[in-house]
């Protein structure tokens, strides 16, 4: 029990930056470039943590609190997620609500930190972030509701736990629909193409990246790490959801398939980023509403 928790927390702490490396490597390969090393994110983090920070005259403590609270919230949310097999470190009925709201907490503080700079660009990014998030949130919730209804449990560990196998047998279409919907939400929440472009250099088109323009040094490291952690969380959820169809007993095998699944997820994200263009900003809410509708449809299938 304790060991499993330690493994989970260790995985949570160590693994995420690798995902970003995989995504970038996949994109580079498809574009015909060699791309950065797989562990580039770790190097970046180490470098940033060593650096000093530059602060604007306009900012207050809110600006400094933003990255710390953002990371803490994502990390705490990670404790609720059963990553490599078995149950999560903390699990109770309704913990998925807390999961979603912890992410919202992180977002709230990131947005405030952005507003604290007084820059119009960062304000714009914050506005977009919170606006799109308010549409993404119900979509995410709907996915959880479908899962909860399909498995009959209200905790993440239960939803992604043993009951999932039976759920896939009973209600595969509904789960598949919600998995698709969930993937869309994942792209939006993690600021990936087609919603946002993490590599763009035009501030006017950015969402997440523009919010953190003014952060530097250790602050930026926290943000970067938090972003990778968040990608990890969503990836883990999706992987657990899909592999639930052929349930494996907890153990090394399950852990291995989980890690492989995550790498596959990162590759899929990279593929999507290579294959698609960014959507117009006004299209983003439509896409998210579309995802919600898919989930509602799935729910209707289950409630019928």
């Amino acid at each position, binding site marked *: 029990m304790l060991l499993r928790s330690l493994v989970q927390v260790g995985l949570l702490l160590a693994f995420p930056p690798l995902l970003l490396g995989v995504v970038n490597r996949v994109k580079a390969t498809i574009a015909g470039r060699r791309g950065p090393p797989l562990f580039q994110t770790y190097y970046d983090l180490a470098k940033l943590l060593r650096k000093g920070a530059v602060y604007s005259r306009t900012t207050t403590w809110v600006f400094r609190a933003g990255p710390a609270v953002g990371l803490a919230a994502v990390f705490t949310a990670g404790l609720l997620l059963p990553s490599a097999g078995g149950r999560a470190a903390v699990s109770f009925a309704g913990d998925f609500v807390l999961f979603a709201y912890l992410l919202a*907490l992180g977002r709230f503080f990131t947005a405030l930190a952005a507003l604290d700079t007084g820059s119009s660009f960062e304000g714009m990014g914050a506005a977009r972030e919170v606006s799109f998030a308010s549409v993404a949130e119900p979509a995410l919730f709907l996915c959880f509701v479908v899962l909860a209804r399909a498995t009959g449990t209200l905790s993440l560990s239960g939803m992604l736990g043993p009951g999932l196998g039976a759920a896939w047998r009973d209600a595969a279409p509904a789960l598949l629909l919600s998995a698709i919907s969930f993937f869309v939400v994942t792209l939006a929440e993690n600021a990936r193409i087609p919603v946002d472009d993490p590599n763009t250099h035009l501030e006017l088109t950015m969402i997440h990246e523009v919010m953190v323009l003014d952060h530097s040094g250790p602050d930026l490291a926290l943000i970067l790490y938090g972003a990778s952690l968040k990608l990890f969380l969503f990836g883990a959820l999706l992987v657990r959801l899909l592999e639930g169809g052929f349930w494996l007993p907890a153990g090394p095998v399950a852990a291995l398939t989980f890690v492989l699944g995550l790498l596959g997820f990162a590759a899929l994200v990279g593929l999507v980023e290579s294959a698609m263009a960014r959507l117009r900003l006004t299209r983003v809410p439509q896409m998210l509403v579309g995802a919600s509708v898919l989930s509602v449809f799935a729910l209707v299938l289950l409630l019928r």
Partner: protein
Amino acid sequence: MIASLAIGAVGLAALSGLPGLLLRRRPALGQALSAAALCAAAALGGAAAASVLAGGGAVSVRWPWHEPYGSLALRLDSLGAFFLVPVLGVPALGSVYGLSYWPQAKHGYRAVRLQLFLGLAAAAMGLVVLADNALLFLVGWEGMAVCAFILVRSEDDRPEPLRAAWIYLASAHVGTFALFAFFSLLGSARGSFDFSAWRGMPAAGGGLLFALALVGFGIKAGLFPFHFWLPGAHAAAPSHVSAVMSGVVLKTGIYGLLRATGFFEAPPASWGAALLVAGAASGVLGVGFALTQHDLKRLLAYHSVENIGIIAMGVGIALVGRARSDATLVVLGFAGGVLHVVNHALFKSLLFFGAGSVAHATGTRDLERLGGLARAMPRTALLFLAGAAAISGLPPLNGFVSEWLVALGSLGGMGLARGDRAAFVVLGAPVLAFIGGLAAACFAKVHGAVFLGHPRSPAAQGAHESPAAMIGPMALLALACAAIGVFPALLVPALARAAAEWSGLPAGEALAAGAAAAASARGVTLVALTLLAVVVALAALRRPRARATAPVDTWGCGYAAPTARMEYTGSSFAQILVEGFRRVLLSRVELEAPHGLFPRSAHFATEVPELVLDRAILPAVRGGEVAAGRVRGLFSGHIHFYAFLVFVALVALLAWRFLWW
């Protein structure tokens, strides 16, 4: 003993304004004594409520009364106890806040009047919560409305509060008439007007009754579409009054709904569904309206509509649960709703106090003219942030806990039989998430526009921090928000007991559901503490490394001389969402886009008239006045016409009697 504590609290609250009135020569002393009396009343009431909630059971007293159908019957049960605390507590804190915010030395007789009626309002609300007789309830109910009317028009030298107060009073009174009908129908069915005699009413055929209760209590609660009076009234009052209005006066409407539905045996699921839908509409539209506001207090007022919506959703879920005898739905929905009542009282008062401090420091409530106050008012900024996070339902604060309970309750619908249409209550959870997301967006806007960035006007530049009498109550409220947010499990058993009392479910089932919820709530505690620990750890970790270089200007993406005018304002911030709501809210957008290579001027403004008040109620009232004028025009002042009316009356009555009747 407990009963006399509660009665003493109400009595003391009623009399609390007297020192201010009598010691007009020494205003500071008088006001302080008044505030102290109100605080003492709150403490007494809190003690009584705590004793009831701790499992002491309901207490009641009864005296004879000769008023028709009336009896001086008072009863404090768990439901009442949950309401009694904020009902007395928020006015008490408000009066402390008022010591600096509205000192008698500066505002003269207006402050005396405000203090007097603040105490009376608290007492009237206490009476509402304690009354065990319909007529006595109505006395408290209307007393509260009149006191609130006087409180709202405290600044009676400006036309805006007068108008808002009148709209409030008129709608409150009309709502009370619906309650007249409601109580009268119940009373004649049972032959008594004591609440105790009304328990176990059959719900069959009670649809009309429920509709009356929904209108009567819904108007007071500000449930959409009966919210129309609310934004004006809350915005026009002094901030501590706004806190009382929004924090507790609205809640009496919820209390009434809970009391009223408690009378019925197994209410049909459609009641719960109606409340759920009304609550969802309130929640979404309330926050939608809030997003469009530029006035800090109006914005907060619309958030009251939103939060009342969340509470109504909780109550609706509980009602659906009663229709299906499902203890989980009942306990979670009820607990979420009632806890949100308390929570909203806490964080909304906090926010209104904060808004008052801002207005006090800058003289404006216009979001577009504020900004950058966090430097001058760091404490207020921090406390306001706590309130903002709490109202957005973010952990580890109390708003999250109650929304979480309501969401869990709505998911309890999963437990219903397959094919039961009531199972669609599960859709409440995503709606809540939507509301929560929008609220977070809105409060990011508010906090950003008020406290962060550059000051956008000279007024905002000259701001100063508020004195201790204003910060103190805010800090207390913020602490309470955090305490409930971190340790919710402490309250859950009492909520479950209250739910059992209210619903008439077997206590065992309800307590079991409550125990399950409490177990989950302990999980919340664990996570919340972890979160705090991680934040502290990260901060500690970062501190030694933060070798900050000399401060610089914000990086303007290459633009060298950024000014405050270039900032993203509140309106711009909300623009995406407002655009999304445009069809629903019928907002007016004024846009003069820049044209050509060298644009001359450009201009963007949004204005959202109050949907129901400005587009339905007021036109209807005006139309009614015109129609009445037409009828009046038929009556000339000629004596012949007067005589003619007598003649007609005689002939008509004779014809009625002898030809037709």
